[in-house]
């Protein structure tokens, strides 16, 4: 069996401010997040979740500090307002961005995401949730070690979202996912490690909370989930 190198995302004394601005988006941020697995970045709006995601992508302007990625060579970042070009059906776009060997994987993902009936539609003809689903499928079909999903399942109904998250976890156990969401139940339930970025002026600026990391074959226990949610809310 092929042994994967250990994955780790770590950050020390990280500060980020937009050019020509005095106040920092986040300051002295430090965390250590082991991978692989389905992890989350949680916090109120404006604390720098997307800025941190862009730092992971290599956009270092305005950043100081140390960012370490071990066992992670290729990072992809997807966000919820992305669009596919309108000159072809979404199914045709998917065909064009995959290798021939990936057809089976594509079909499985399309089915998991309940997108089979919509492959013949143009992107503009889809609902917001369908748009986000088709966008996420094309990222999952790419070569990556880490995928940052910035509100990637916004506007998707809860049962479908749950099915998709469990499906992703089952199909990509050796990948590092960083899921940015404002849904505390969702991150508490499905994520292994949750980096909670605190609101402005709060110390510490971030805390790591262990999530329930639910998989499809285990029952959900109410009490631990509620404790995790409470921890997240206290840290935010």
């Amino acid at each position, binding site marked *: 069996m092929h042994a994967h190198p250990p994955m780790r995302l770590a950050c020390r004394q990280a500060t980020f401010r937009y050019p020509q601005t005095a106040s920092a988006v986040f300051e002295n941020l430090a965390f250590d997040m082991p991978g692989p697995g389905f992890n989350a970045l949680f916090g109120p709006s404006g604390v720098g979740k997307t800025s941190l995601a862009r730092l992971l992508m290599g956009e270092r302007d305005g950043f100081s500090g140390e960012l370490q990625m071990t066992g992670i060579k290729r990072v992809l970042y997807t966000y919820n307002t992305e669009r596919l070009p309108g*000159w072809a059906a979404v199914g045709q776009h998917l065909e064009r961005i995959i290798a021939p060997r990936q057809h089976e994987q594509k079909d499985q993902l399309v089915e998991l995401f309940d997108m089979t009936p919509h492959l013949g539609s143009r992107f503009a003809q889809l609902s917001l949730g369908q748009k986000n689903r088709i966008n996420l499928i094309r990222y999952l079909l790419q070569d990556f070690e880490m995928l940052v999903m910035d509100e990637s399942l916004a506007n998707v109904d809860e049962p479908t979202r749950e099915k998709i998250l469990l499906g992703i976890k089952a199909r990509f156990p050796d990948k590092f996912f960083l899921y940015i969401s404002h849904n505390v139940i969702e991150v508490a339930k499905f994520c292994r490690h949750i980096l909670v970025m605190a609101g402005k002026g709060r110390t510490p600026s971030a805390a790591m909370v262990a999530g329930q990391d639910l998989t499809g074959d285990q029952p959900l226990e109410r009490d631990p989930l509620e404790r995790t949610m409470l921890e997240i809310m206290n840290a935010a």
Partner: protein
Amino acid sequence: MLLRRIYQFLIIYFLGLAILLGVKYALRLSNYVIPDPLLLGLTFQSEALRYFKDVLDTMSIAIIGQVLSICLAVLIGILGRQTTWFGSFVKVAAYNVQAYPIVALAPIIFILLGDGFLSRLLIAAMICYFPLLLSVLGIMAEPIGDIEHFYRITGRMRWQLEVKIRAFENLSKLTTVVAGSATLAMAGTIVAEFIAANAGIGYSIRIALYQSDLGKILIALFLIGISLSVYQGLLEWAGAIIRKTWESR
């Protein structure tokens, strides 16, 4: 689309004519200054066919000039869309050069190339080229971030795809710019003919001016306007067809 263009022109033309006739009757001006409707009708009968041929002559040059301008503007727009030093250089050069009035260069062109086809074509192309270039540059240099992100991050972005995305997203704008540039090309050709050429409707207007015959000028303007409206309407229609085909392919 085509009909709308035509009736919009007819409304404006006859409104202008009504104002002119209003001035004539209010100030009791003679037919020599502003001809009455009967004289205009007679002038139309005697000159319309000849002028229509002149308009077609002018328009054929304007269309060739416009096509050349579009090709050049798209080429330079594609080169200038890049954020490299070359792209910036092309953009700055385009913005600076267009600030110079092309009509002012027309005499030089006539001196060097004579008063024939080539001078008219060159002036028409130059007059409609710069506004076209600025629009194409603006469109091509503006990233469509929410579409391009995926192709960039996965290393799939090629210049052809970048151009395709930006052109597709701005197809309505491009169609409007191309239809609008038809007026500029026509205006450029007429100005060129008016200054020094020996053919075309601009040349005929110059002769009518020497004869102080406002009737002939008004007939020429009518034919220019109606032909241009038809041409622009056809361009918009073609743009709509292209867009529809592209979107439903």
